[in-house]
């Protein structure tokens, strides 16, 4: 659902879930592994852990003709191992503007492994918001889907299916 906060900024919210064939402990480990996060974040060029809860990342977002590089800080909070956390990122993309977003991630046991459910909010400002209004919603949806699908595959791959 898309809403305009003010003239120069756009925000959206969405929910989703993926079922991952791995134990909750394995999925939790993947969520805290910067190498796996780097492989899962679409367009992630570099990632560096600064502390237990702070990660610095550079991400290149390519959507259609637009290609913008964002550098920013990712923080983990509400840590509740192995049940979930909140991951938030905020990056500046130079002339393109800025993007920020976060996801509340919850893990629960299901018969097939682990259900990862997420509650995402994202917003962009600056030039991206001015010209990209009609596409922010679908872009954020696409990036979040890609991230959680890749994360699921990586978590399942590193741990093997639950027996």
């Amino acid at each position, binding site marked *: 659902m898309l809403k305009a906060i003010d003239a120069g900024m756009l925000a959206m919210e969405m929910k989703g879930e993926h079922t991952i064939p791995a134990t909750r402990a394995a999925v939790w480990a993947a969520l805290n592994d910067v190498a796996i996060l780097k492989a899962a974040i679409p367009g992630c060029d570099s990632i560096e852990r600064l502390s237990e809860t702070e990660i610095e990342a550079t991400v290149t977002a390519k959507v*259609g003709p637009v*290609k913008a590089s964002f550098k920013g800080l990712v923080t983990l909070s509400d840590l509740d191992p192995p049940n979930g956390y909140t991951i938030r990122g905020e990056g500046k993309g130079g*002339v393109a503007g800025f993007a920020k977003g976060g996801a509340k991630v919850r893990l629960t046991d299901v018969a097939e492994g682990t259900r990862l459910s997420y509650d995402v909010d994202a917003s962009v400002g600056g030039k991206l918001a001015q010209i990209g209004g*009609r*596409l922010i919603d*679908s872009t954020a949806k*696409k990036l979040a889907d890609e991230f959680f699908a890749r994360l699921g595959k990586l978590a399942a791959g590193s741990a093997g299916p639950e027996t």
Partner: protein
Amino acid sequence: MYAFAYQRPNTLKEAEAAFNAGEDASYLAGGQTLIPTLKQRLRQPSVVVDLGAIAALKGIAATNGGISVGAAVCHADVAAAPEIRKLIPALARLASQIGDPQVRNRGTLGGSIANNDPASDYPAALVGLGATVHTSARDLAADEFFTGMFETALASGELVVKVSFPAPRRAAYVKFRNPASRYAIVGVMVAETAQGVRVAVTGAGPCVFRIPEMEAALAKTFSIGAIQNIPIASGELNADIHATAEYRAHLVGVMAERAVAMIA
């Protein structure tokens, strides 16, 4: 605009070589999307390879039972071509409604489909009419060409050369356009082709899609009544400041009915 190198090759081979030699190269067709993006500094290619001088990308020709349109043909030329107006009037009409005169006289068929903007008109024409995309490497059915939002089956450096459209028995395209940009908020192509009835929708979702339920219903009875009660799910549709997903779902039905009404 950032500085970039500029090349204007004369052949497809030279174009692909120039593209592959650049670290972050970009092809330039009509420039109706790329140039504004460059001006806004939202893209910084190292080299821009202008396709305007390549003869192989030009021209409109009658084929066995259809029309082939070169990738570099602008929308205004598609709209005005006598052979297209005679054989596939729905395609000429669709091209006449793209953007404004500037876009129609500079923007090209190849540029539009390679960009695959979710609100562009041509994807509905290609998928609705069952066209074939001829690239510098292979031939692709339109159903396989458009793969996602701004995504196509084209490999890096691969170029659209031309598109062949088989002539349908009857076809109509109706769009609900954004009054400012003229982009399709929802556009529907309904066509009765040699392979059956096809219904293709652009603008509503992240990428052009077909509606098999409507195609099956129209194949039985080609009338508005046949599709009036087919529900369109809004779950995967686009939402933005112009229209909600639910409104777009509703418009898909209305545009499809209007298209059928034009040719039933």
